[in-house]
């Protein structure tokens, strides 16, 4: 699904990623854990194609194509989804309208007809109920005056509706109370299948208690310094980053 090879990235001449490699196969859930400033969010932005990140070396292939040649929207429409750490507010644009626009953009890309309004309403209803999202909120402007929890649930709603092959969750657990965390995790688990893959970026182990990863990677100073299974996350929680990064 995704293969990152020896990726070196800098921002304004400052080196952030220093030769990172990572391979994610279909059906796998990978967790990427690391302290602040280790390059976690940079990786998510580089994967999704944000501006101002210079790729100095290395390659990324996504579904056997060169990801780095694609525009942001092309990556999205080919099945890469980023759940934002700070979802953007878009005043004047109704949440459900935004969702429909996004779905239809993808369908247009795939040469499919626009999604029937009724069909859209049905799946929106089902998925938002699963995520205990108040239907009223879907009529409001996107993310405007949403609580932190509502914003994160909204990201998972979009994820489920857009049905990506690879979903990157950038600190989706930050700012969530325990109930919201559970709802978000349930949403992810429900969506998880043998056809798709996840890259979960997080500081803490707690989301991983609910969404069990197949692989855990520790990133420090722009590189993956340790990889293992779920037990690595537990060990990390006990010992802290400083020790684990030096292993």
């Amino acid at each position: 699904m995704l293969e990152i090879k020896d990726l070196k990235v800098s921002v304004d001449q400052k080196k952030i990623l220093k030769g990172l490699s990572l391979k994610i196969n279909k059906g796998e859930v990978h967790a990427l854990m690391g302290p602040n400033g280790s390059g976690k969010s940079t990786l998510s932005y580089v994967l999704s194609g944000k501006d101002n990140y210079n790729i100095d070396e290395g390659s990324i292939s996504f579904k056997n194509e060169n990801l780095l040649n694609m525009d942001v929207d092309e990556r999205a429409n080919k099945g890469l989804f980023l759940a934002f750490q700070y979802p953007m507010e878009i005043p004047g644009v109704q949440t459900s309208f935004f969702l429909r626009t996004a779905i239809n953009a993808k369908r247009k890309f795939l040469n499919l007809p626009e999604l029937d309004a009724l069909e859209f309403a049905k799946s929106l209803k089902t998925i938002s109920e699963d995520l205990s999202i108040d239907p009223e909120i879907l009529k409001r402007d996107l993310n405007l005056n949403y609580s932190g929890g509502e914003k994160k649930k909204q990201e998972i709603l979009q994820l489920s509706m857009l049905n990506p092959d690879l979903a990157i969750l950038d600190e989706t657990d930050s700012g969530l109370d325990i109930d919201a965390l559970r709802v978000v995790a349930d949403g992810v688990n429900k969506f998880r299948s043998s056809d798709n893959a996840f890259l979960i970026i997080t500081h803490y182990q707690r989301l991983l208690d609910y969404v069990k990863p197949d692989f855990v990677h520790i990133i420090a100073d722009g590189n993956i310094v340790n990889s293992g299974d779920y037990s690595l996350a537990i060990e990390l929680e006990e010992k802290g980053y400083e020790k684990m990064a030096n292993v």
Partner: protein
Amino acid sequence: MAATEKTISQVTKLGSSDYKYGFSSNIEDVKAPKGLNPDVVKYISAQKNEPKWLLDWRLKALETFFNLKKPEWAKLKIPEIDFQDYYYYSSPKSIKDKPKSLDEIDPEILKTYEKLGIPLQEQKVLSGIAVDVVLDSVSIATTYRKQLSELGIIFCSISEAIKDYPDLVKKYLGSVIPVADHSFAALNSAVFTDGSFVYIPENVRCPVELSTYFRINAKNTGQFERTLIIADKNSYVSYLEGCTAPMRDENQLHAANVELIALDNAEIKYSTVQNWYPGDKEGKGGIYNFVTKRGACRGDNSKISWTQVETGSAITWKYPSCILQGDNSKGEFYSVAITNNCQQADTGTKMIHIGKNTTSKIISKGICAGQADNTYRGQVKISSKAKKARNFTQCDSLLIGNTCGSHTVPYIESSNSDSQIEHEATTSKINEEQLFYCQQRGLSNEEAVGLIVNGFCKEVLQHLPMEFAVEAQKLVSISLEGSVG
């Protein structure tokens, strides 16, 4: 390249060749001699078989025009206009008298309107909308007239109204915009050619949207339309105008006067989607749009609401205003003005509070890209008699790129201590993070800009009649893609 830079480069790349109404039609026309003088005014008046009082009124207006200086308050670079270099009257040759039925209309004209998406054939007319169609200087057709006349509603061209309802015209023409108001008002009064006339009788709620579609076709021709709408006591009407013009390298002149009169408890909703040719991306050609629109809330509890979406024209100079004479009367102004490439707009409103408990609301959204300039200019004036008058003004500007300019110039005068005036203004740049977020959800750069800008304008667009709101939304997006389409 940063997302906004991408937007800017796309915006500049797309030239005005994308203006989809830019075609010109080969319609034989009859023109007045070029230039502006009493003989031309007499020619126009004679073409229309006008009564003497109107000819005299026109000639006086012409004299006034020659004596007045051009208004200079706007922040616009207006090239010297040679008023002698225009034709002031152009009529399709085939239309000597207004055709009695559509069968009599030149097929070339019908084709023109079909291309514009305005079907004139009755069986195809847009349901729920009656249309008056003005090509260059004359009204071509008015649909739905019979059905409307059963309710006592008069909807016809101003030329016909002068013939058929002289008393109404005489009573109200120039009563809201005095001839000597400023030079463009005087010019229009002297040479106005056609436009719409609406009268809604007492206690009638007009069941359909009334609409006028203006089209300038002939070369070097000015269009001077005159519209007069009277809503008698307890009546309601919603009126919409749309405008387009061919792409021509010369600047064309458009100076309209629109007068609205609302009597007791009457309401007029006036919407404009202005999509005149804006000129090419170097600023060559395009319409000079000098428009005077003013409504008088003469009656108590009357209401006038202006909604405008201004996307076209090389220069827009326009301040739809309300004179709130009746007690408890209401004035509203909702505006979206988009300028791209070399377009300039200086637009806003005047709310003149005279009656007691009068209220006004102004929502203005300016969007600016390319090298364009966009100014909101608005006056709120509260007279000493206007006890407990209230105004709320909100002006928001959105900038795309670093080479455009946006300005907000409010004038507030209050002679009354118990009035309440609020003014809010914001200026922002299109947010790169928002663009990235939308693109990450699969929207192209243009789609993302369109979505964000439409969200920005929503408070205004939602005041448009439903049938036109969707069109306007598309227009907003397209205007910023490159040009007006």
